[in-house]
């Protein structure tokens, strides 16, 4: 199974998922990532998805996906019940990102979060020059109809992770072409050039 062009983050997520892991994909859409990880890593996957169309398509793929809302339904999953919990391009669409992140860290031994970077230079330039909310290829919505109600920059996310006592095990930034930025580049560069960020977190409690 190949990686869909639009989701270059999948191939990088895959690197962080151990073979045969129990995986929960929160905001799994039509189940493309779960199916991809089942094929590549033989995972035991579950999904949570808000849209009925997404759930139906995922069920049609033979995936186990529950229709529900990350903001309210994560509370029903037991502590540490998954090896990996993935939140791919979804955090910015939740009502309470901090609470959602805390729940993810409770449910998963390891949490993978990918976010679009609002601090990307294109977004900064858009706001600076045009004086209007950025609409870019990576962030295609107008401010009034966007599902992305809680944008942040990569640096903002680092602060949030710190606030919920998460340890960042690994991270990567991708540019607009989906290429991984040099690992040794300083954060300020990632925050400027990165179109999206991928973070692998564990809760401090899990580590100790």
């Amino acid at each position: 199974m190949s990686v869909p062009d639009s989701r270059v983050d999948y191939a990088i997520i895959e690197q962080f998922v151990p073979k045969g892991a129990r995986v929960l994909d929160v905001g799994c859409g039509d189940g493309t990532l779960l199916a991809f990880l089942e094929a590549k890593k033989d995972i035991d996957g579950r999904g949570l998805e808000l849209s009925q169309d997404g759930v139906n398509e995922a069920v049609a793929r033979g995936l186990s996906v529950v229709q529900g809302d990350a903001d309210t339904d994560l509370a029903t999953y037991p502590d540490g019940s998954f090896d990996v919990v993935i939140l791919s391009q979804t955090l910015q669409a939740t009502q309470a990102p901090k609470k959602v992140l805390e729940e993810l860290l409770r449910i998963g031994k390891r949490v993978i979060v990918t976010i679009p970077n609002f601090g990307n230079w294109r977004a900064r330039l858009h706001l600076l020059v045009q004086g209007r909310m950025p609409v870019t290829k990576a962030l295609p919505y107008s401010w009034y109809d966007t599902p992305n109600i809680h944008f942040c920059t990569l640096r903002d996310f680092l602060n949030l992770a710190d606030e919920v006592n998460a340890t960042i095990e690994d991270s990567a930034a991708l540019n607009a072409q989906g290429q991984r930025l040099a690992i040794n580049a300083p954060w300020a560069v990632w925050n400027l050039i990165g179109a999206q960020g991928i973070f692998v977190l564990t809760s401090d409690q899990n580590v100790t």
Partner: protein
Amino acid sequence: MSTPSDLPSLHATSTTLEVTEPFVLASGDTLDRCQIAYTTYGTLNADKSNAVLVCHALTGDQYMLGTHPVTGKGGWWETLAGPGRPLDTDRYFLICANVLGGCMGSTGPGSPNPKNGEVYGLSFPLVTIADMVDAQAKLIDHLGIEKLLSVVGGSMGGMQVLQWAARYPDRVISAIPIATAAKHSSQNIAFHEVGRQAVMADPNWHQGKYANQSTRPTKGLAVARMGAHITYMSDAALQGKFGRSLQNRTNISFGFDADFQIESYLRHQGMTFVDRFDANSYLYVTRAMDYFDLAADHDGVLANAFAGAHTRFCVISFTSDWLFPTAESRAIVHALNATTAKVSFVEIESSRGHDAFLLDEPELFATVRAFLTSVADREGLTS
């Protein structure tokens, strides 16, 4: 949608299994012998791996497809089942049994007591959802089927699906509980009690011994059905279908005739129901639903009912169903999540209330088809 006449091969023929060994019920009572009336559709394959058990709702029966012998109407699930349908009779072997306590051939209060030949009436022991499922398990044994590819049902049928998964987890590869709950709610018990009181208030009921009096409490049963029927619909559906429209008149009558179409409709529903349903069966089967509480049988923790299950679940609810609201389905999903079972869940947008599971609901069909196909493919079933 094809009509029953398009399905000649599916003309329902009910078969009766005679169970001759004693059947111990949840109440502790024993039925020395009993009968289970059932229908099958499609062909059981050589390794008996394509069997799907369909569980009917409160007033349903084994005639899920084909012409009903009493009403002459089509089966109750011709929307979902048949050749090429989601419950595809070209691929699966469908089994549908009349529940224990029912009145279409399986042993119930209207059956003769083998001890004295008299109709049981209220001397028939109370049966539970678990008893119904145990009876079905005897049928599945009789058919030589070890594992069911799926157990499917809506409403009380969904309760049986959950009970199957809890009681015989190794025999249920997949389960599709639709518009149901893991326990009967207080409100639903209340509605059932009103229905039962209507039956028992009918002077023709004779303390359940109406068989000896050559009468039937049809008025009481009709009222019970009228009340229940309201709970199967939604305010929006009633408003859309009837509104305040008058029945064959231009003005209100200033009397208690069926002025409104909705009154006439309900009266018709009540009157036709009594032709095909036994009043005492109605008491017993509603009681079985009232007693259903899957968590109570597992130390009060619903998740315990499904602990260690390998069954794949597909839970389905409807937005306008206020009798078995989505919250009940979510409680099932949460319990399954807690056991880390494989569960899918879909809430389907519909304005038609609880009865939506019996109606033409494309999202329901798409979900059942997709789920069951993936299960069958995974099991290596030839398509």
